[in-house]
Structure formats: structure tokens, C-alpha cells
């Protein structure tokens, strides 16, 4: 993911930082990948999903995206793999699968 004119933190040299590292671009955290320290990834079984949206409501990191077709999809760019969605799912439609290095 990228945004026009926006530099990710890891790309900014020290003398280009804003005073006090204050961020002047609202919503810029959308472009910062924070899903790379996950050890388990949520996988949704749509055959079991009843589109109740509890996973979306309970995700502490707003990393569940509601889709137009009514289903919900984990946003793996930001998901930390905490497993709350899997624990809260009333139909056990979400399983946490270990991330394997490729």
C-alpha cells in the first residue's frame, strides 16, 4: 500500500522529521504495515459464516473489513493475529493458522 507524496516512517531521514515527530497527515497509519509481527493468521470459512459482524465489532485494531457482499475479511496488512475474532465467532468460522515462513 502506498500514498502519493507520503513517506513511510522507515523512509524519512532524521533531519526531515517534523518537530517532535508530530504527524501532519491525518490517517497515515493506514499506510504503515503493522501486520508483520503476527504469528497466527485468521482464516475465515465462508461456509460457516453467518455475516453477524461480531469479528468486525470486536477487532481491537479495526483490522476486519466489511465487504459489499456482507462477508467480513481480515485486513492482513494491519492484523496482529490476536485471535479475538476467532474466539468471539459464534459459528467457529474463523481459525487461527500458524504463519509459516516461505
Amino acid at each position: 500500500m502506498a500514498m502519493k507524496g507520503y513517506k513511510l516512517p522507515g523512509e524519512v531521514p532524521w533531519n526531515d522529521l517534523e518537530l517532535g515527530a508530530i504527524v501532519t497527515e491525518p490517517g497515515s497509519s493506514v499506510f504503515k504495515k503493522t501486520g508483520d509481527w503476527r504469528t497466527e493468521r485468521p482464516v475465515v470459512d465462508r461456509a460457516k459464516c453467518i455475516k453477524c459482524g461480531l469479528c468486525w465489532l470486536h477487532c481491537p485494531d479495526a483490522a476486519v473489513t466489511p465487504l459489499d457482499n456482507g462477508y467480513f475479511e481480515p485486513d492482513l496488512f494491519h492484523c496482529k493475529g490476536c485471535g479475538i475474532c476467532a474466539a468471539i465467532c459464534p459459528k467457529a468460522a474463523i481459525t487461527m493458522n500458524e504463519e509459516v515462513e516461505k
Partner: protein
Amino acid sequence: MSKRVVLEASHAVAEAVKMADVDLIAAYPITPQTHIPERLAEMVAEGDLDAAYVPVESEHSAMSAVLGAAAVGARSFTTTAGQGLELMHEALYIASSHRYPIVMAVCNRTLSAPINIWCDHSDVMACRDVGWIQVFCQNNQEAFDMTLWAFRVAEDPKVMFPTMVHLDGFILSHVTEPLVLPDPKDAAAFIPRYDYRLALRPETPTSHGCFGPPDIYFEVKYAQELALRESRSVIDQGWKELGEAFGRHYQAVETYKAEGATTLLVTMGSLGETAKMVVDAKRAKGEAVGHLNLRLWRPFPFADFRKAVKGVKTLVVVDRCLSFGGPGGPLVSELKSALFDLDDRPKVVSFVAGVGGREVDDAAFEYMIDRGQELAKTGTDCLYEPLQIRGLATGTGVRG
């Protein structure tokens, strides 16, 4: 018109804050700082100062409240002492990291236990590395001047760092002395209002206190470290302007009767007043003794200090605080590291005195000068000598 008044240092600080026309004061009363917030609360209640006064429930909240005020660009002030400063500790880093120009007066008090409300520099030294500009005062006039100056420096666009003004608890905070207050108009001209361009405003949104993972944290800290060091030019400029406006001149390192001196007595804070008196007496007896007052504690004035002690044979350093298990006192440790790389450096003799409000009188200074010169000659395997410990033979040092 400036006027000569008689005020205790706490009220002198309050007068400076009033002349700075602050927007917000958040403070929690703690001995020996109490008279500062008390006086400011009166000023606000009586309508003499148009500011919000937030009577917070703790020092941690006091610092948090001024952080919030500074984030919207309000001129903010707080004040504390001893335990209160320690309770603020983690929030002090937020202020310097965010580059909020908060001004805080600290009435230096030791730390418990045992419970002790009196002066030493334990509270300051525990906050040595928090990234604030820090200055010390020797008397009430300086307490007023440094407080006013702190706003001038902290808010300078080239600085934008919070600033601590240290005044010794009780010894200054509760002592009444004559001092000169400037015309409030001149004071206002000395510290023009500033416009914080990154203030939290709905029309130009900014995020303060964001996430800083390993790929950016060190860059942020390096920028902060360099900026604090570079604030020196404005620190000096502020004192120059203060001198021009009010006729009182200050420097990062100040010497007294140092010309031709082979021994310099080094102190920080109110100890300097008695020390200078003893230097006068020593000079009258023909001894080549002078005094060095370290006014600026952070950023540490390395070059000024080295220049001031050039050619001096012995430095007698008085720490008003212990560094448990360390080099004796934080001040001497700093001075020694400033001198270490020099080929021709003075011998440094270290004393710890005035801890927990113990009086350091003229006889004590005379002893330290004489004993210091003796130790410089004979050499010692001790780190420092604690002064006047009951049950300990005079001249007993502490070994590392």
C-alpha cells in the same frame, strides 16, 4: 517603570509567571513549592491574571494537563518539588519529545525515605536526562529572571523545549529578599507571544504522540538530542537580551574572583552565595581562590566550563546529592567527564554536602577549600568526602 520590592523567591516566580501572561497553570501543592501555586491561584481568583488554573489531583496529572495545554499552543506553567517531580517523571519525557515549551519551577527538595521536605538536588538529578533545558538560581532575583527568561528561550522557534528553573527549596523558596521587578510592559516585550504552528486545531489536524517503531525511533531521538544541544545559541541570546533589557547579566558558567585563582570552588544553586562570601574572605587573606557557578545544567556547557577552568590547578566541587554506588555526586561526575580528554586539566576534589537540608555554612566552605587543596596535593584513593557525618572522623572519604 521597574520597581524594587521585597519578595520571597516563590512569589518572585509567581510574579514572573504573571508577567508572562500564561494561559494555563496546572499544579499540585507540595512543600516547599506550595507558595508558588498558592500565589498564582490568588492572582487568578482575584482577576489579576487571566489564565485557567487547574487544581489537579497529582503531579502526574499536573504535567499531563500542561502537556494538553501546550499541544493546543497555550502558554503553560507548572511547578513542583521532590517527590512531586518524580511522580511526573515519565510525562517529563513526553514534554521534551513533543517539543512543548512548558516552563516549570522546581523548588529543589530531597527524596524519601526517610521523609524529608528540605533542600538538596536529588530530585533534579533523577531527572537529569529527561531532555529539558535546566537552569539553577542562586537568589530571588535570579528566580524571577530565570523564570521570565525560560519562556523567552523555550518558545523560540529554534528551541521549542520545555525548561526547568531550579531554585533551592526553603533556602530560596521561603526566603524574603529585595529584588527588582521590571515594568510588566518591558517583560511582555521580552517574551513576545508565540504561534505554535503544529497546535491541535480541527482545521489543520495533527497527531501528537504517535507510534515510533524501531525503523524511526532513533532518528526521532537523534533529532531531539541535536536540537537540545543547538538550543545553546538561543539560551545565550536570551541572557544577552535580558541583560540589555534589565541590566542583569547571566551566563552558562559564571566565575567570581577567578582571575589568577589556582583553586576554584564549584557549586550549583544557592550554595554559590555563601561560597562567594568565603572566597572574599580567602582573597582578603591573600589566597588565590575563586568561585565557579554552574548555571546551565542542560544542555551541559562543555566548552564554557573547559574555558573557565583553563590554567586552574584545583577544582573543589560540592555536590548536593549522592549518586548511590556511583561516582559520589552527579555534578562532579559530569565535570570530570568534561575534563577527561584534556591533557592539562585541574585536579578535581569532590565533596558531598547539604544533603536533606543540612546547612552548609561558611566554616564548611572554608574546610572544603583547605581540605580540597590538601587532597589535591597528597592525592587520594577516595571518590569523595561526605561532609559532617556524625560518628565519622573528619576527613574520611568514600572509596569506590
